[in-house]
Every structure is written in C-alpha cells, then in structure tokens.
C-alpha cells in the first residue's frame, strides 16, 4: 500500500484508490472502541516544540469552537522558548490555559513528560524540527494519543521507512492524526480538486510551481555560548538532518498540492541547483533548485525554487490540462484564490470558475477538521500521505544535491540516514553533523557524491 509503482494511474484508479484508503480506515474504526467522542469531555493539549509555528498551531487548536479544549503542558529543548510560549498563549487564551509550573518541560525527553500529562484520546502537537517527528510519534502511538504534527514529517528515506510503519500502527489504533499540510483543508482547493476530477480542465498534462524570494535559511557560525547540538536544532532549516533543509521545509506544500490535484505521487525527480550567494554562511542549502518531477503517466511537475534577493519573486502553482488550466496557489498558501480557465493564457475572458472570496484560514480549518473527527470519532489519519509528501520532497532535493535522477524507490531505500540516533540525543550529545577543520559543514557536491547528499 505504501509502495508506488511505475504503473500508469488513470483517474478512475485514483478515485478507486482513494475509496480503498477510506474503506480501510472505516474498517479500522469499526473494530476499535470509541475513545473520545463525547462532546462534554475536555480535550487536553500538550505542545511539544514551542517555536513560532508551534504556538500558532496551539492557538488554532484553542480556537476550535466545538467543545471544551485546553492546553496543559509545554516542552522544548530551549527554556526561553517554553517561557515565550507560556506567556504568549496565556495572554491570548487565558481561559483555556492550564499549564502549571510543573508541566513546563525543558530537554530532549520533554516530549515524554508532556505526553504523560495527557490521557489516551487527548492531542499532542508535534512542532519540533522534523528530525524528531518519528521519535515523538512513536511515543504518542504507544500512549494512544491523537496527534497534530507540523510538516515535513520525515527528512530522508530511512526516516520515511520508519514513519510509514508508524503510520500503519496509528491507523490500526484508530488514532486521529493531522499533518500540517493545511492547504489540503482549504475549501477552495477542495472544490478545485472536485472540478479537476470532473474534467473541467481535461486531463492534467503539466503542473508548475514557484517558490522564489529573497535570501533564506542562511546561518552564520555557531556562537560560543551554545552547544553544537542546540545550535543546529535552533537553526534547523540550515541542516539537512534536522529539517530536510530549506527544500523540504519550503517546497513540500506545493509539491503536495500539485500531486493532490494530479491524483498521483511523482515516481522520479531530475533536478539542478547550486550555491552562488551563500557567502560566509555555513548552512547546507543551495540558493536555487529547478526540479522536474515525473508522474506515473509520464506527465511532469516543474518546480522552481530560488532564494536570491533582488530577483523576480513568485509563490504560486498551476495545473495545465487538455482542456484548460487552473491556478492552485495565487500567492503564498492563503488565500488560495483558486480558479480555472479555458486554455492556458489564464486571461480574464477565459475564466471558467473562481472560488468566492474571502476564504477561511486553512491553518484554522485543519484544526476544525481534526477536532471534529476526534469528537465525532470519524476516520482521520494523514500520517501516510504526510510521510509520502515528505519523501517526494526529499526525492527532488536528493536529485539536486547528487546531480542524479532519483526514483521513488531509490530515495525510499536510500542508505544515508542523516541522524539515525536522534532518539538518543541528550543535552550533552555531540551534534549529528560535524564541521570540518575550516569550521564549515559539508555541503552537497552534485556529480561527486552521487549516492549521498553530503
């Protein structure tokens, strides 16, 4: 079920597969007793990973209006992060804020302590750097706790293999699992998908995505007053082991939304990229990436990422069909302003349909949907598709970083695991990545390192 073959996928198969996954989940739901459906029950939340996005997710969770929900625990490896979450969320959601001093946890084992404050059926928010996602998910499954996890959820092939197994287990336990690919919950995109499936723009023959802006995900050298490990965790966008790099973190949304519209996952990637303007920055990212993803029917997703200040900027994605075209993302993730056109010039006169404005925030909708599924005990598990979205992101990144064509199977079965022992890290552990004698971290060398990204 998790393997993708080169077999051609027709729209009918796409629909059939979607139905099959839903049926599996429904079956699982039928055999597992209801855990947490009563509306008078208060859902308890723990936040693991107290950065800006973790706080944002917690705030969205506390803003769901279908029954009592409160925040009881905070965990992070940085004490100042816990403190700022504490203050920020207490100020904003005083009535639902129930984090006592003894439920603030600092350290690499904080996730266990935070989840120990919950009961089966409560919700943990996993918003640490992605490297730790499988570790924390493992414990949530063990405890029967529902999960919301930020994207990406894996960083390489080996962590994806682990995750796909965990995803299966979580389905068996009927856990509700949300993955922060919030565009999937955008009502406009959902309607666009229905229109594409009904044939409004014909069969999709090409997709395009752009994520081009100023310099990003750079990092200067480690300050003296900080451990190597904490430095890399804090600058996780800069280090492949921690986040999958800027590629995975920035591009996953649009790779996922394009593949969703296509009704298939890409089976191989061919990519270029390079470092021109990193200067004295020591991160492992490239400045630009151009990727050609191939779907099972041979059609392509062309994805362009660039982080160079002063260049043309764009943050959009498009689908082209045999009868017309569609805007999947107009600029940034929200509002999507999705629309369909006759032909491919996307001119006003050719407009077929546009989702009415204004739109609801998908960051809120993804929480409304998750909590509703928990209270109504509906099948709801995004872990597998989140893992595959993360994997195909890694596939494009690996293609650029090695200079080779990388297939789905190659990235999935890749031997390089950036941080195999991430579950054993403590405050005094050495960092998973070590700088060379010149103080610089290894960077990808396309054409020289062909099997490994560094």
């Amino acid at each position, binding site marked *: 079920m998790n393997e993708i073959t080169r077999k051609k996928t027709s729209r009918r198969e796409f629909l059939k597969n979607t139905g099959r996954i839903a049926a599996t989940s429904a079956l699982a739901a039928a055999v597992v007793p209801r855990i947490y459906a009563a509306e008078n029950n208060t859902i308890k939340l723990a936040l693991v990973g107290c950065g*800006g996005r973790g*706080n944002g997710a917690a705030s969205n969770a506390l803003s769901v209006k279908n029954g009592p929900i409160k925040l009881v625990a905070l965990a992070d490896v940085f004490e100042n992060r816990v403190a700022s979450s504490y203050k920020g969320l207490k100020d*904003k959601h005083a009535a639902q804020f129930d984090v006592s001093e003894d439920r603030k946890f600092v350290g690499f084992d904080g996730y266990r302590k935070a989840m120990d404050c919950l009961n089966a059926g409560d919700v943990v928010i996993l918003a640490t750097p992605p490297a730790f996602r499988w570790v924390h998910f493992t414990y949530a499954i063990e405890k029967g706790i529902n999960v919301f996890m930020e994207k990406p959820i894996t960083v390489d092939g080996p962590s994806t293999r682990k995750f796909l197994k965990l995803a299966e287990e979580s389905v068996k336990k009927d856990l509700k699992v949300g993955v922060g690919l919030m565009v999937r919950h955008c009502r406009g995109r959902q309607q666009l998908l229905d229109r594409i499936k009904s044939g409004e723009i014909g069969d999709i023959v090409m997709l395009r995505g752009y994520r*081009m802006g100023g310099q990003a995900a750079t990092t*200067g050298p480690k300050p003296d007053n900080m451990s190597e490990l904490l430095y890399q965790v804090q600058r996780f966008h*800069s280090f492949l082991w921690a986040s999958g790099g800027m590629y995975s973190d920035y591009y996953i949304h649009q790779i996922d939304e394009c593949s969703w519209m296509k009704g298939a996952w890409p089976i191989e990637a061919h990519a270029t990229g390079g470092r021109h303007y990193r200067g004295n920055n020591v991160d492992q990212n490239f400045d630009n990436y151009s990727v050609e993803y191939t779907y099972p029917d041979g059609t392509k997703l062309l994805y362009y990422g660039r982080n160079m200040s002063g260049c043309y900027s764009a943050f959009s994605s498009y689908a082209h069909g045999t009868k017309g075209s569609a805007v999947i993302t107009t600029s*940034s*993730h929200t509002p999507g302003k999705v629309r369909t056109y006759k032909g491919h010039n996307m001119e006003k006169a050719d407009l077929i349909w546009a989702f009415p404005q204004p739109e609801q*925030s998908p960051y*809120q909708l993804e929480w409304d949907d998750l909590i509703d599924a928990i209270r109504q005990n509906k099948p709801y598990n995004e872990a597998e598709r989140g893992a595959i979205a993360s994997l195909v992101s890694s596939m494009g990144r690996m293609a650029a970083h090695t200079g080779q064509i990388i297939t789905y199977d190659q990235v999935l079965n890749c031997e390089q695991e950036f941080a195999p022992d991430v579950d054993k890290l403590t405050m005094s552990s050495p960092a998973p990545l070590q700088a060379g004698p010149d103080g610089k971290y290894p960077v990808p060398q396309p054409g020289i390192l062909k099997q490994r990204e560094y």
Partner: protein
Amino acid sequence: MLSWNRFAYSIKKAWGKQGLKVNRGVKHLALAVLSLIAFQCRGAPDEARGPAKSYTETVTTKSGEKVSFKMVLVPGGTFLMGSPEGEPGRKDDEGPQHKVRIDQFYLCTTETTIELFLAYYHETVSAKKDFTETEQAKKEAELVANDVDAATGPTPVYGDMTMGYGKTHPAIGMTWHNAMNFCEWLSKKTGRKYRLPTEAEWEYACRAGATNVFGFGNDPNQLAEFAWYKTNSDGETHEVGKKKTNAWGLYDMLGNVSEWVYDFYSPQAYKDAANTNPRGPTTGKVHVARGGDYTSPIEDMRCAARTFEEEGWRSGDPQIPKSKWWLPGMDFIGFRAAMSIDPNAVKPNDGQK
C-alpha cells in the same frame, strides 16, 4: 452578485428618498480636470515663495534605479469630519460629526506602489537574526550605524511580497509599523519629512472640499469611475492612478487598497477629538485604515467610513508571536505617504506609545 445589485438598488432608493441629487459628480469631475491643470507646476517646495502646488519626488535605489512619485499640496482649511446620522451605511464610530481645522500638507497622488516599497525592502531588509551574533554581523551593523541614509528594516517577508501583482500596483500586506518605518526610510533618503497622514488629514483630503458621501457626489452608480471596489475590481487590486482623481488631484482615495493612517482606532475617537490637526487617541491596540478596498461593498467606500486592523488580518501568519512587519496574504491593505510643511505639525512618532 444578485445580493450586491439588490444592495446597490436599496442604497440608491434610500438616497432617492432623501432627495439628494445624483448628478453632482459631473461638476466635481470638471473641478478635478481644472485642478489637474493647476497642479502641473513641478519642482520641490520652496518656502520663500510658499509651497509649490505639487512636486515630483525621485528616489534612487542603491542599485541605481530611479522611482518617482508625485505629491500634491493639500490646502489648509476646516471641514466637518465624520458622517451625518442617516447617511446610508453609516456606523456609530463615524460620529459625532465635528469641525476640524487642518494645516496644509502634501499627500502622494497615489497609493505607495510595489516598485517603491520593494526599493525600501531591498535596501533595508534585515539580515537573518542568526547572523547578528557573528563578527561579520557586528561589522555590518557598524557600517549601517555609520551610514546616515540607513534605516532599520523589516525582517524577510514570508513568501512573495508582491503577491503576484505588478510593480505599479499598490504595495500590500505590510503592518502599520512597517508602513511607518517605510516613511522613516523615505525621509532619510530624501531629507523631507514623510509620514502617514492622520485620519483627519486623510478624510479631509478624500472629501477635497465636498460635503457629500463620496467626495465626487452621492451617487453610488458613479463609484466605478473613481474607484476599484467589490463590484468592478474582479477580485484584485489594480494599477494605481487608473481611475479619475478627486477634486484635489488624488487617485484611488476610495478603493483599490485600504490605507493605513497614523491614528489608533477607537470607536469613541470623535467624542473628544482635538479641533485642530487631531492625531487620534494616544493609546490603543490597532490602527485605522481608510478608504475601503477592492473587496469593499458600497457602504465601506464612503469618505467617512472607518476600518481598523482586525484579528483576521494576521491569520495568514501561522506563527506566534505574529510578525511585526507583515500581514501575509492580506492584499487589500496599503498606504500613501504624506509630508509635513509646518515644522510643528505631527511627526511620524509623536504622541503614540
């Protein structure tokens, strides 16, 4: 669409009942044309001869590109701020109507464009916070500190600041703080005192001497000649300066994007407002934006209509704390720059805490 037509119809009926004339806009159009002719004189303001009717400011970016915009003199005077009870679409915060005296000042004929805002952004965008601890960052900070032209700048924008719009469209999605910071940058760059207009200045300039609902008259059927709003915008902003100006030569005062003004918002603001150059409450949480935008229905397009930053404006920012600089995805909010003439007039950072 049906409901908007119905609204337009009912609002028209309501005005009809009040016996207001709907053709007054024609007269104002003629005035606008005359004003435009009068405002053709160029050059920087010259204190000795009295301020010029208008001038063109040209900014040279650090990469050598030139970006120009035009400022017109808004003559000093007194006007009735707010709307009368019974004006269709009126909200309570538009009253009580009160007399306000405004000193002359300059106001940009257009909303600040993406081109100009990008120049500011590229010149001032701060290095990643990560870098500030390094030796190089210290050196860079010293360089900036010794550069009289340098201004502090925003953090890198999430995604694409242009949101897909062209360079002659209005700049969008900046916080009030960012708009204020832009004015400081522009002031350092040009040696003139650029700032946001106060709410009273904005309404005075929007009315341009008229006492009617829209400045050009009372007939909502004429709105499309002057403004991009819900009915005619096709759901997006448009290039600045493509509609008719108001009587004082100002484009897009109504519609296209809502415009940040200096004042904090309070629904009670008019109850005890100063009667000369008021600058709004001294404390507050959110700021006022004026003029309605491309998504606005007719009632929000009135000269007196007030809006202010709502929580939803930050909903495109998935992080907490929210960005001090950006309102991601919010393409309906922008601003235009004003410039003080009187040295005692309101300065960008006066008054507010």
